[in-house]
Structure formats: C-alpha cells, structure tokens
C-alpha cells in the first residue's frame, strides 16, 4: 500500500473543531477512507466531541452515535444487534474511544462486547491522557509524564491494553500509529474484513497535551516507534507479528534509539531534564522499555492462541 493508493474520497468534511495538528482527526479521516460510507461510529465522551464540535452541524460524513463515556462497547453490541435485525450486517460498527474510554472507564463494557462476540471494531485512539478534560492522567499515561493530576510526573506505569485484548482471544488485534498512516490504513481494512470483535489501538501524539510544537506531531509518533516507546504489531488469530520499524527492531536489524531522544522533545517530560537531569527516572524509563521488548520477543515467539 502506497500513499497514492489511498482513496481520494473524504468522509470527514473540512472545518472540524479539533485543535490544529490533531491526530485524532487525522486517524479518523484515514479510518473512514479505509472503511467507506457503510460505517457507523460510536464515540464515547472524548476529544472526538471537539472534532464533532457542535449541534446542528457535524463534519462527519458517516452516522455517529455519541455515547456516554463508559459505554462504547455496550453501545456497539446494541447497534450491531439492531443492524442484524435490519438485515444490514455489512455495515461496519466502530467504537472510536480515547484511552480513558478504553483503559479506564470504558474497560468493562469493551471487555463485555469482546466476550459477547460483537462483530465490530473497537478503536482506542491513545493520546495517553484525558485530553478533553484538560490533560489528566489515564491508565495509558506513561511513567514520568506530567499531567494536571500528576504535577511531578506519573508514578505508575501504563497498562498493556493490547495484551489484555489478546487475552480475550480476539480474531484480530493490532496497534498502529498516526505516523505510519499506510500501515494504519491497512490494519483498519484488515479488521473490517474479519468477522467478530476486533481491537485496534492507535498511538496519537497530542501537541497541546504533551507540550511540543505542533508541526512535529508526526515526527513525535515516529520517534515513539523508533525508540520503542510504541510498538507496531498485529495478531491475526492470535499469531503476533511485528510490523515495519518495530519488526526490524525485534529482528535485531535496527537498534532502538535511546528513549531520551523522544522524551526530551516533550514538555510533559521537561522536569526529567531541567533544572537538572533526573538520572534515576530516565534510567528507569529506559529499563522499562527494554523489558517491554523482552516481553514482545516472547509474544512474537508464542503468540496468544485464539483456539
């Protein structure tokens, strides 16, 4: 898949309400290109509300069901059941939830929808914070990150949600990044081609939330992958395969860049560098990433059988 092959049709109208450089919007735009118009989005409370902006207008060219924060997965189950009754099983139902609506308040109903076998795609667009309410920490916020509820940096590590989803024995689980857009596009299409519950998680750099210059948004996502802070992989029927740069890293063909190269560009980690370097924290973060990659190796070797 090359950029030229991405469809021209736009299902997002220009003039949405999100911040400049918003990759929530970018990945929505790409996802809808991949899915086409026979799609219903379920959007729990999140920044996607600021994308949609305001009654009586909307930039969305597909139907959108705004949903309560906790209820993305449950709403998908209801929507899919109704579409089945209407003889419209070919309509894609996609929950578009933030990390809060996935890792935290949305976990129960998402897990339930997966276990119920709902034929849908759950997309977690992970900007590693509650951005809509003003940058509070979430279960996806990395250790050390400043947020408005962790002023000195988060003291806990993030969860591994893709692994939790793998443990649900889903037919398809994949991670992607706003900065590897063709890969993201392909994974959305792949998910849509499989029946049953699918989980996709997109890494979403957020300039205002992470405090970096907005034009470097795509670079930030790239650096996350190059340093190994984010990994691109997919699990088809439980068989885990890493993709692109992450595959090269896993196969030892490319070295991971030091994590500091990623951290030092973001204001949310500034306290780790200034006024003086917090060596302990920086080393701890690097060690965490190193350990994550040891786990990834095991994951790639054994996968998670769907059986």
């Amino acid at each position, binding site marked *: 898949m090359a950029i030229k092959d991405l469809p021209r049709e736009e299902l997002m109208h220009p003039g949405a309400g999100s911040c400049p450089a918003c990759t929530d919007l970018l990945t929505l735009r790409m996802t809808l290109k991949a899915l086409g118009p026979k799609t219903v989005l379920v959007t729990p409370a999140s920044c996607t*509300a600021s994308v949609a902006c305001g009654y009586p207008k909307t930039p969305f060219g597909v*139907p*959108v069901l*705004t949903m309560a924060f906790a209820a993305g997965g449950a709403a998908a189950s209801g929507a899919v059941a*109704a579409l089945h009754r209407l003889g419209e099983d070919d309509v894609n139902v996609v929950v578009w939830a933030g990390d809060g609506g996935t890792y935290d308040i949305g976990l*129960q109903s998402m*897990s339930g929808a997966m276990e119920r076998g709902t034929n849908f795609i759950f997309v977690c667009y992970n900007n590693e914070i509650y951005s809509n309410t003003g940058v509070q920490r979430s279960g996806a916020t990395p250790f050390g990150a400043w947020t408005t509820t962790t002023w000195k940096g988060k003291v806990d590590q993030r969860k591994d949600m893709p692994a939790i989803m793998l443990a649900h024995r889903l037919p398809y689980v994949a991670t992607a990044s706003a900065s590897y857009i063709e890969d993201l596009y392909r994974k959305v299409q792949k998910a849509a081609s499989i029946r049953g519950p699918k989980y996709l998680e997109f890494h979403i750099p957020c300039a205002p939330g992470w405090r970096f210059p907005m034009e470097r948004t795509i670079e930030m996502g790239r650096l996350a992958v190059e340093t190994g802070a984010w990994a691109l992989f997919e699990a088809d029927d439980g068989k885990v395969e890493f993709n692109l740069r992450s595959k090269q890293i896993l196969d030892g063909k490319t070295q991971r860049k030091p994590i500091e190269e990623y951290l030092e560009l973001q204001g949310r980690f500034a306290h780790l560098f200034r006024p003086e370097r917090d060596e302990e924290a920086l080393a701890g973060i690097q060690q965490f990433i190193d350990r994550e990659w040891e786990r990834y190796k095991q994951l790639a070797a054994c996968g998670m059988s769907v059986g």
Partner: protein
Amino acid sequence: MTLMFDVGNKVAAKAVQMCKPEVIAAYPITPQTVIVEELARFVENGELDAEYLCVESEHSVMAATCAAASMGVRTFTATSSQGLAFMHEMLHWAGLSRLPIVMINVNRTLGPGWSLWPDETDSMAQRDTGWIQFFVSSAQEAFDTVILAFRLAEHHEVQLPVLISYSAFTISHTMMPVEIPEQDDVDAFLPPFKPYWRLDWRNPVTFGNVLSDEYHMEKRYTMHLGMEAAKRLIPDLGREYEQRFGRYHGGLIEEYRTDDADYVLLAMASVGSEAKVAVDNLREQGHRVGLARLRVVRPYPDEDLRRIGRKRKLIALDRNISVGSGGWMYHETRSAVMGVEGCDVYGYLCGVGGRDVTYEDIEQMALKVFTGDARPDVVEWWDLKQTGGN
C-alpha cells in the same frame, strides 16, 4: 382470548413477547430475573424473533438498548433497584434521545443493607430522567400497560421512554389470573415501530453532538411537550385499548369511590390495591373516603389532582423516601393542589424498606386524619420502631 394463571413477571414477559421487540438487552437482578429469563427462553425457542443481548452490567444494558433504539428498532428491558440506579446516566441518555424504549422495574429497596422487599424509591429517584413512569398494581394491569406503553412511547407526539414499575414479590412473584388477548389484536393495536430518527449510513447524521446553551433548553422543552401530550394520550389510548380488549385501568389516576368522598387516599403500586380494601372497610364504617391510585407519576397528574382535591382532604401514602424531604407523592401533590379551594394534604411514610403495608395499617392512618389527630404539615413515619444505633 386465553386465560393465564401465573406470577406477575411471567405475565409481563408474555406481554413483551406479544409486542415483538427486536432487541432485548438484560442483566439479572432479583426480583426481575424471571422476566429476563423468560424472554431469553422465548428467543432461544423461537417463540420470539429478537436479538437477546446478555450484557455485563445495567449501565451497559441501557447503553446497548439506546444504541439499538437509535438504529430504529423496538427495544425492551427490565431491571430493579440497584440495577436501575446503576443505569441512571443512561436513563437521561434515553430520555433526551427521545427513544421509545420500554422497561419494567420491579420495585425493590435500595441497599446497603441488602434487601429484596418492595419500596418505590428506586423508580422515584429516576423521576427527572425524562421517562414516562407507570406504577401498576396487578399482573393484568402490568400486561395491559406493557402493550399500551409501546404504543404511547412510539407516538409521534410523545417519543419518550416508558418505565413500568410494580412491587417486588407482591406482584412479581404472586400467581394471578390474567386474560391474554389474541396476537392479531395486539398487532392491530400496536403496529410495527416506525422511528422518527435513526442512524442510517444512507443519511449520515451525528447524534448527540455538543449541544450549546443556545439550543439545550428547547430540547428539554420539547420533552416537556411530549410529557404533556402523554397526559392526554394515556386516557385516550386507554379507552382505545378498552374498546379492543375490554379493560380500562384508569387514566393517569384510577379513581375509586371518590364521587362523594370527603377524604381521598393517594397511593400507588401494591399499596394502591391494598388501599382499595381499606376504602371498602372504611366506607362500611360510614366514612366518606375514596382512593386515587396514581398509575402515572411522570407526567405528574397535577390537573387530575387539582380536580380531585377540591374541598377534600388528601392522604398521601408514600412508600418511598427522599431523605431530608419526605415522600415524593406528598410533596408533588402539595405543590399541584396549591391554591385549590378547601384542599389539605396529609402525608404518611409507610412500608419504606419493604415492611408490609396492610389495609389495616391504611385504615388506621386514615382514621387518624378523620379524627383530627394528624397534621397536614407534618409527614408521619408510620409504624416507626425505636431507633438509636445498634
């Protein structure tokens, strides 16, 4: 027409089956369980052609139900007590979405202090969520009200969800004879659902977008108009139902022996049926007393109450509690009859937490008013035992 002799929950499930909902999402809670078990069985046996979703919580029940209704299909669910409370956020969602969902709530006391016994606080605590609320006092009334509720909810002037409540055990688990109409007649009364909005990829709209203060109040106002329309439509549809099926349970209020009454008891749900016995007994003793059984509390039957309250003393028997305020029926009735000539409202809190309220209790409460031993400005806690720690 056939006769069914069974517990209230099974009778209610039968009514739901005959209304042909297309999506049912449910989560079990005593004493509602039999309804959702029965519906699951109907769906598995092919006796009801519907999608049945076993979801993982009541919040999810109502989310799934809202989503299904948003796609334009008829939906039903049932719950009780903690389950209804857990749904609270989504109840508002359903109301503001103008989704004609029908739900049964089996009234059960809220914990802690786990309790299974009836008390209307669970339903009454949801009175501001935009749901039309019925309270029924027999299995037959539950059956008939389910069918009426779908018709009402789906009426274009209403477009609001409907909650039907009845008492734990005294209705839900008590065997009663019930007349079951023919399916053809139900179909004729309740045609297939035609939604007034839906999510359809051919007509892609965004539902529930950010709604600024510039628009919000008007959305609430039109919900209010839906409630006002329901006030008119509940008796009208009730009469239409009567013509077809031969039964009428009342409009917003069922009035019993009120014509020449000086005193009128106000009650609902199973206290309402017990109060009928009390009225008969008190009448035999020569007291001119009647009963206004509130079948509907949202919309509140304020106009009916003003008419009934003229030159009469009303005695509200609340089996629900808003701690720090009192019983809802008492307070809402007081504000409804404000300025009505010669009307006083007396209030009792009785059976809160499920303690039995017998007709004898009701007679005693009424007599206390008749003899001038009760005050209209003080709500009395009936049958209150000694308090003070463990």
